[in-house]
């Protein structure tokens, strides 16, 4: 017999679960740039038409089945049977028209109002179903670290690295930086540093523009700041850990004033960004794009998706309306943040070159567990958003009547199993590299090294969403 936990009783829910959540490095600080700082060191401007990619990493393994829900009668019946304690009410789902392709109808989670509206009005949102690495050869399928490693590297080898790993966007950054050690072409805002780390390229890390300067409330601040900088610029004096610390500080010092200087005059035209979470980060990125900083890849992330228990605590379907549960609210936050970001870029006339990709390390089990949550699973939807994106629903939706079961599942439980793959995640990366960054296809696999792990890569390309 299941006893109601204290958390349920208080309605506070527990969304974090095992918390493979990212450090939410959003200080929301209000430290103003130095008065009178000049834009002295110019890291250059991004030339018009240069493609920009923003990867949004949902840490913990987002539950795809409650994000994009199948509407065909038998599929939906199976959905309800698999999740007696977690199913979303049919009348609250946000139905999507088919868009490109002829696929089973699907709907979005009730929290994703803004994104659903954007899907219909601007046709710039693509939903790609059934995404995962290949089942049989991939290491660490249900393991956060290994699966995040696969997601960020575009490889299948999990986290058993024998050499320093690089991210798939990082290897793109290697090409974009062209050996320039001062390049800031890839910037990590807490979306997975490995994603944007190349074989040679080291990303810039920021938590926010406003807080990107050392605070020295001590003595004669200007004098101390000057000596502080001199110390960090002492090249050739240190080795190992000491030297790597110095170089990171030197880089930060070189850039701190400049980034703020180039973005301070940003006119805020959109006020729909959420005040926390992804909101302030995406606003900072909008500023950097507006300021034409030579940054082409950004990594952002959001934690809280490892919803093992009380996944949707607080959800209530009343006749007067639907009260969003915890997972619904997470998705609502993503939806609101991305829509605000897109509208902001549009308002400033810089949306044309930006593609946003929303990913997670794995989906979750088709069935819920006895804690009204879901355990680690397999395939899940990926979202792409941008002016160049051809809005629609792509890739077959993996049938909930045809789950990936193993012997253990069928022996012990009648309803259990994982959502099958219909889309290899590498094909999505490839499509972005080819169609957004204009990398010739032969340079991606084989001879090139952008996606060097081709194991079990079937011949099927992803549908043309971009």
């Amino acid at each position, binding site marked *: *017999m*299941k*006893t109601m*936990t204290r958390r349920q009783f*208080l309605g*506070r829910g527990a969304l*974090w*679960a*095992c918390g493979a*959540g990212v*450090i939410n*490095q959003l*200080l929301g600080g209000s430290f103003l740039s130095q008065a009178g700082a000049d834009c002295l060191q110019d890291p250059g401007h991004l030339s018009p038409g240069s493609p920009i990619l923003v990867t949004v990493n949902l*840490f913990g393994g987002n539950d795809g089945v409650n994000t994009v829900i199948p509407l065909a009668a038998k599929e939906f019946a199976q959905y309800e049977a698999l999740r*007696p*304690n977690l199913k979303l009410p049919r009348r609250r789902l946000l139905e999507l028209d088919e868009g490109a392709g002829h696929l089973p109808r699907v709907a979005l989670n009730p929290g994703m109002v803004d994104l659903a509206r954007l899907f219909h009005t601007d046709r710039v949102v693509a939903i790609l179903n059934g995404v995962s690495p290949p089942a*049989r*050869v991939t290491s660490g399928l*249900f*393991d956060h670290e*290994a699966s995040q490693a696969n997601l960020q590297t575009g490889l299948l080898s*999990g986290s*058993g690295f024998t050499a320093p790993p690089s991210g798939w966007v990082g290897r793109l950054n290697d090409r974009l930086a062209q050996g320039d050690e001062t390049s800031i072409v890839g910037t990590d805002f807490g979306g997975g*540093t490995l994603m944007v780390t190349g074989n040679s390229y080291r990303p*810039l890390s*920021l938590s926010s523009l406003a807080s*990107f300067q*050392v605070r*020295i*409330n*001590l*003595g*004669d601040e200007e004098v*101390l700041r000057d*000596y*502080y900088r001199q110390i960090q610029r*002492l090249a050739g*004096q*240190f080795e190992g*850990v*000491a030297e*790597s*610390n110095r170089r*990171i*500080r030197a880089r*930060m010092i070189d850039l*701190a004033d400049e980034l703020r200087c180039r973005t301070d005059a940003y006119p805020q035209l959109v006020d729909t960004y959420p005040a926390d979470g992804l909101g302030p980060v995406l606003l900072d990125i909008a500023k950097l794009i507006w300021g034409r900083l030579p940054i082409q890849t950004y990594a952002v992330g959001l*934690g809280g998706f490892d919803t*093992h228990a009380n996944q949707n605590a607080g959800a209530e379907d009343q006749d007067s309306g639907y009260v969003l549960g915890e997972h619904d609210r997470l998705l609502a936050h993503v939806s609101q943040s991305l829509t605000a970001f897109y509208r902001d870029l549009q308002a400033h006339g810089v949306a044309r070159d930006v593609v946003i990709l929303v990913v997670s390390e794995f989906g979750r089990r088709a*069935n819920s*567990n*006895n*804690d009204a949550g879901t*355990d680690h699973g397999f395939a899940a939807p990926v979202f792409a958003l941008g002016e160049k994106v051809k809005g629609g629903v792509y890739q077959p939706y993996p049938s909930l009547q045809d789950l990936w079961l193993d012997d*253990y599942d069928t022996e*012990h*439980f009648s*309803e259990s199993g994982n959502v099958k793959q219909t889309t290899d995640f590498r094909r999505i990366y490839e499509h972005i590299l080819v169609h957004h960054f204009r990398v010739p296809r032969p340079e991606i696999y084989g001879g090139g090294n952008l996606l060097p792990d081709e*194991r*079990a890569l079937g011949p099927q390309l992803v549908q043309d969403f971009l």
Partner: protein
Amino acid sequence: MMRTVVATVLAGVLGATSAAARPGGVVGFGNDPVAGRPAGQNGAGLKQSGAGAGLATAASSLLIAGHFLRRLGFGPTPQELAVLQQQGPAPWLTQQFDPERLHQCIAQLDPRYAPGPGPQSVGYEYAYRWLTRMVYSPCQLQEKMALFWHEHFASSVNKTFVFIHFRDQESFFRAHALGPLRELLVGITKDNAMLGWLDNDGNDGNAETPPNENYARELMQLFALGPYELTERGDIVFIKDQAGTQVPKPAYSEDEVKALARQLTGWSATYPTHYDPNTGLYNPTEEVGPATFDLSAWDCRAKTLFGTTIAENCGNGADSTGETQVQQAINLLLAHPNAAPFFVTEFLKKFYKENLSSPEEKQFVYDLVQVFRNSGGNVAAVLWAAFTDPRFVSPSAVRTMYKTPLEQLTNMIRGLSGSTQGVDLHDIWGYETAYRIYEPPSVFSFYRPGRKNALVNTALVVGRDSAAADVASNPPGNDVSSFDAAGLIARNHIQTADQALDFLSQNLLAAPLTPAVRQLVKNYLGGGQVTAEQFRGAAFLIMASPDFQVN
């Protein structure tokens, strides 16, 4: 250049190098693997035995002293530094393993640990008190190991916000700082905080839907075995997959996850009964009892783990306390051959070097794995063997690791004889440096194993250095700053810039400053009597310099 200095000093200190060839590498220390005490009844044997070629009786160098105090504790204080320099680390190390002394450190509370006015908000005060213990406790290794277990069995208060659970968990780690490992694994399975964090709380094995697998998975992956099979030298074992590619061999399968989840069902955390409706938080001072077990929620069917079957027990014979069920599971995990290399590499990565790749480093792993196996998984024995081994103090191990933000903060306060009052642990240190006691941000704690460099990037160094400036400053309106600059100047008769630099490098670094850094700070200080404000500025510059970033 630094390495040459270290090597020369070490050669002088350690004397004969033949000891390095001995398996287990005991140099100058007796070995009592059961309690980790030196040979002899009560520690006095160390002096009497005449053992201690080098370390026990000869004066140790500043570097060695600083190394032990930073790695096994939270940094040198002027007093401990002087003692270790004079006596060598052996007597201090012996004390750190002395069971009677460890017991006293728990039983006799320093009044500085008691609740008092502090900057922390309700609940976070427990974390602040632990910081205070880290700074002041004479049982430095006990505190460092309690923190080790907190990071190893990572769980965060920011899910349930039941602070008393984390206070209790901290006490549990302190009481078991040096093991036994079995009690740690059994205890953490029944721990109220962990039950909440990894969802084993109320996990029902007899419901229609399958039990939650979260705890079972992490128990194997993070706590007891690691994700991959390891050799006796700590190398990942690779196998060929169907396509002929080399892939890491998993240490456990999904079947094991599910079977273990079923075996560990039936437990529920015990929560406080009162909460503040204004804050929505449980009363942080209300004591709670242990977790409870409900036999009717335990899956009594047979389970097979690693080829061993735990027999079905659905009759009246099953243990209604749940203790047997947990012990059965933990015994199987500890019997797994991976447990030894997993724990040994965890210890070495935290205390010795993050990358264990050279033949010498792998031999160190191998030697300690033998100690682990021969002692039945005795944590104290393994740590004793590690810390008394000459490899622990090799030049490539001294001042070559990244400092965590917490080590940085405590090193500052201890080195400057400072106070934890006025230090806003939660808002400044924790938030900006992503390292809050009680709040590891992920299952991998504050950083992935062996990836301490993730604690340092352009964003995080802003936080570290800002916080260093805060510690060095004298906040307006706060009579009790983090350290008493004027007092240090007076007591140590500091007048000139060189004297200030000597003091700061001695006590903050236990090593000389890099000459170019020293010259710059000297330029800052200028001529004439060093003022308190200048002293603070110099302390900040050194604490933000590369010299201070290394452990």
